[in-house]
């Protein structure tokens, strides 16, 4: 009996630590890579700040001191700032039960296999999954958030603008009291967005999505997580302190999933010494990369 108890405690500890390490790995992979280089980052010209991912952990540590982050005053109703250098990757990993239509759509996302039988993302519409050809289609929402290179909130009297380093794009979240359209006249990759404050939580609701996007990069063996044009998304942001932003995303799409699909609460840190750069998806670059990858992976005979 005692051994069983020890085993259960050990099992819970291992699972908890593994999940934590996995989540950290998703969120910190890029910065770890930079720190792992062992070299100082490339300095930017005086007065200019590097992009969120152009910094390494030592740069961020120094900026924490330079910008007096600990204990810094903040307005919980002002999300202005450059946040994070990675998204909430793999936020959508375990879907709710599919509807029959959702199941059918999901099964159509499985792509070709490599010669050794490994599944690829050849049907990924934005082509950013492992083994896919990248065609620079927009990533859509919430996928852009799950895999971003940092974003910036800019607060205006009637709207909040959210700029994204990844693919160098933006969305407008209207805060002037307008309602979501019941029947949006055209689908949008990043949706039709309105925002409001509920206490210290900034709630963003959206609809009118282009159904070609997936919810997340997912994994080739899992297929892609699709959505219908009727998908609604609810996001909740809370600035806990000057440098910490919590967020949760819930996808509500009864045509595809039988229950709402909510992510776990994610934490994104302020990057005070960074400014948004130009992480464009350049078709000619990506075409060249596709050729390189195709050659290296052996999927194209030379």
């Amino acid at each position: 009996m005692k051994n069983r108890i020890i085993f259960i405690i050990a099992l819970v500890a291992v699972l908890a630590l593994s999940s934590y390490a996995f989540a950290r790995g998703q969120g910190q992979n890029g910065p770890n890579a930079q720190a792992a280089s062992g070299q100082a980052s490339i300095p930017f010209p005086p007065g200019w700040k590097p992009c969120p991912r152009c910094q390494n952990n030592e740069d961020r540590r120094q900026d924490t001191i330079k910008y007096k982050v600990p204990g810094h005053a903040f307005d919980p109703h002002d999300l202005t700032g450059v946040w994070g250098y990675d998204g909430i990757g793999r936020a959508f990993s375990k879907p709710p039960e599919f509807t029959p239509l959702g199941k059918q759509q999901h099964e159509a996302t499985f792509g070709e296999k490599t010669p050794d039988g490994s599944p690829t993302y050849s049907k990924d519409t934005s082509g950013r999954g492992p083994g896919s050809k990248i065609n620079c289609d927009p990533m859509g929402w919430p996928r852009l958030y799950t895999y971003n290179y940092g974003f910036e909130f800019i607060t205006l009297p009637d709207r909040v603008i959210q700029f994204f380093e990844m693919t160098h794009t933006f969305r407008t979240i209207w805060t002037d009291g307008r309602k979501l359209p019941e029947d949006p006249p055209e689908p949008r990759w990043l949706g039709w967005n309105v925002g409001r404050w509920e206490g210290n939580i900034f709630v963003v609701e959206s609809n009118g999505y282009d159904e070609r996007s997936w919810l997340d990069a997912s994994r080739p063996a899992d297929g892609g997580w699709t959505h219908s044009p009727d998908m609604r998304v609810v996001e909740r942001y809370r600035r806990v302190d000057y440098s910490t932003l919590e967020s949760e995303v819930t996808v509500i799409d009864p045509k595809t999933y039988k229950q709402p699909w909510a992510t776990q609460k994610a934490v994104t840190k302020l990057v005070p010494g960074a400014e948004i750069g130009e992480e464009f998806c350049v078709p000619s670059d990506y075409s060249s990369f596709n050729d390189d990858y195709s050659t290296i992976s052996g999927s194209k005979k030379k």
Partner: protein
Amino acid sequence: MKIWRRSTGSLLALVLAFALLGSVALAHHGRAGYSNEISTVKGTVTEVQWKNPHVFIAFDVKDDKGNVVHWLAELSSPATMLAAGMSRTTLKSGDEIVIKGKAGLESAPFTLVDSITKDGKAIVGDPNAEGRFVNSTR
């Protein structure tokens, strides 16, 4: 005791499963075509392709018979490379470099970079910390 042994086995299997899950998670655009062994190759830079999503370096290597073989080295995104200490002008055509990396399968002339050294100085990664850079880059 038997339960404990069985439980220990289950625990090890779970740890292994999570370790594998972690390694899968590191894959971004795919790592098919590269071996897991890190090898060293010396060559001369012919082109730095500073492009998204990943930077590539083309370089020439002389094989055992003195023939020139065109190689391709894959790094990470331009943003990540800036953070890692490399810009588009760090290396230029004609530079003699030593690259450690995960080589292409079946001796294919590709390498997924773990470190680059020029004139005995590390440019990217740490040649003495094998696997550290390449295993945390995507």
